[in-house]
């Protein structure tokens, strides 16, 4: 039925779907405009976009997994793994000899490995019927360990302008990764609303048994969701490494699973599954980033910011309850 709905109509109905989030965003912006010094400047926008992009990219993948009724705790570890691999590849003999090939491989191979992590998660969940929290717990524990074993726990620093473009490049004056996140969002939005895969994704989250009995490729779709989530996490890992011109396997993506889940939920994803608000995930990521920035810019300590984040998560889900009722 939704297929028959014209795009403009859908866009028109969108603010309704996550009005709570929009309201929070507007409140944050107004507060900052009045109280945060130098908030209304291009530089502030630039800093925030370059930081929010990684959260948004991971949160979109998480939204897909949550839409199937699952959860992926391994995203932070996958970020660390992909981020550790990239410098290893373009700093290797082959990579230094052929810079172009080196950088290409340094982007493609880590994403491929991240995809394999997603296959692992997906097979555990969809084929072996292990609960998602437990299945992704395995890579959560060992993924970062593998990354640290690969790098001996060392910080890898490098200077490679073409790779660093991922995190420091500008398009039309705004960070490249911001545009990248937006492009990914558009593609995923199209996939969810316009393809059978997307329809099945939502159907599985709504009622897995019914989706299976009506002949839906439940396993394939579920594995696909975990693979996309892992590849996006890998991409975010590469961006973090590119921003810093250094890869630290111990810190890259640390606690990202929490930020991503929080962003997805604030953006309107239901933990029971059945909904995949992709642009909501971006909105959620922006809100979380803005809260962090607001507190930081007004001299509130990082520790208190954690408590604020906790309150936001609770409030967002609490408000969700009313909408469902």
């Amino acid at each position, binding site marked *: 039925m939704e297929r028959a709905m014209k795009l403009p109509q859908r866009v028109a109905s969108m603010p309704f779907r996550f009005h709570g989030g929009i309201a929070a965003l507007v409140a944050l912006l107004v507060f900052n405009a009045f109280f945060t010094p130098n908030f209304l400047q291009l530089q502030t926008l630039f800093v925030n976009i370059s930081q929010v992009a990684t959260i948004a990219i991971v949160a979109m993948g998480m939204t897909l997994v949550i839409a199937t009724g699952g959860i992926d705790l391994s995203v932070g570890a996958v970020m660390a793994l992909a981020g550790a691999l990239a410098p290893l590849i373009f700093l290797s003999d082959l990579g230094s000899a052929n810079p172009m090939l080196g950088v290409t491989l340094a982007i493609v191979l880590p994403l491929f490995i991240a995809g394999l992590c997603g296959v692992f998660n997906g097979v555990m969940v969809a084929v072996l019927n292990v609960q998602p929290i437990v299945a992704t717990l395995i890579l959560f524990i*060992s993924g970062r360990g593998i990354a640290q074993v690969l790098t001996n726990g060392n910080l890898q620093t490098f200077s490679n302008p073409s790779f660093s473009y991922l995190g420091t490049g500008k398009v039309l004056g705004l960070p490249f990764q911001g545009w990248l996140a937006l492009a990914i969002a558009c593609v995923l939005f199209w996939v969810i609303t316009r393809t059978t895969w997307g329809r099945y994704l939502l159907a599985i989250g709504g009622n897995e048994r019914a989706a299976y009995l009506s002949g839906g490729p439940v396993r394939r779709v579920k594995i696909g969701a975990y693979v996309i989530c892992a590849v996006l996490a890998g991409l975010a890992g590469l961006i973090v490494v590119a921003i810093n011109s250094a890869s630290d396997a111990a810190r890259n993506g640390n606690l990202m699973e929490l930020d991503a889940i929080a962003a997805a939920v604030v953006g309107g994803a239901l933990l029971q599954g059945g909904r995949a608000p992709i642009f909501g995930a971006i909105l959620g990521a922006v809100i979380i980033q803005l809260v962090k920035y607001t507190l930081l810019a007004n001299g509130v300590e990082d520790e208190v910011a954690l408590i604020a*984040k906790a*309150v936001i*998560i609770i409030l967002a889900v609490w408000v969700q309850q009313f909408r469902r009722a």
Partner: protein
Amino acid sequence: MLDETAFDLRKYLRRNSASVTVWIALLALILFGLMRYDNFGSAYNFSSFLNYNAMFIAIALGMCFVIMTGGIDLSVGSVAAFTSVVAAYLSPYGIQVALPGAVLAGVGFGAINAFCIIILRIPPFIATLATMLAAKGGALVISGAQTISVDWGSNFTKLGMGQAFGLFPWAIVIVAGLTLALWLVLERTTIGRTVLAIGGSEDASNLMGLKVNRAKAFVYLLSGGCAGLAGVFLASGFGAGQPLEGIGWELSAIASVVVGGTLLTGGMGSIPATVAGALLLGLVFNVLNFENGQGTISFSAYWQMVIRGGFLFAVILLQSRVIARQQKVLG
């Protein structure tokens, strides 16, 4: 189930086939260690191993109750870090003040969880995720992001470093008592049975007139209290309140419970098997340390995480096959 008088081993095995794997694995690993290393069976290794793992067992016990209701508690690690700081601040007044004080602080966080989950009807995963952040922030705020040294003049460090009756470390005695008490609560009290019923079907339990909310509040308060106790062990065993500790503890605890054969969907579970699961995960580290000591391998700390994940993978794989077979038998 309650009026079972004679213990029927075969029936027990059939009912608990998922948790039997953990006992076999635990025994196999202990035998392996005894045969391979000279000092593995020494009293020192035995008591220091148990003493160190006491806090993880305490957390896993609380987590087991929460998971049996079909919930989850992600806040335990941060709460333990918070209460270790509380215990360190209270340590000058002695263990008789610091222990209850820290456990109460843990119960307080459990109360926040219970309020969010039962009154605000927020899914446990999200509610406890939020408390996890809040407890971590709180721990850093009250400690000023510093390690807080305990008072060495009082009797506080006796708990983590002294011996009860000159035999066992106190932590082991307390955790053994806690295990026994919780086992009795689960198997012999109304609230224990209600916990299992909720995990089986919350709606059905409600319609049966069981006191669902009371049992749910109980498990989150219990889990918070257990985390509080772990914080006391942490502070007294290492001589300091550590606001940055506890990262990933919730996941170790969940792993212990799962390895012990409890399903995350709730409705079933075993207290002894959970303890066995926690011991098994700890023992993997112990064995790796011995291997490192013998010089046959030299694994860095990073390998330990990889191996731990791989080990969890193996147990889950085994368990999913056992459960699949069990479901086939039951139809």
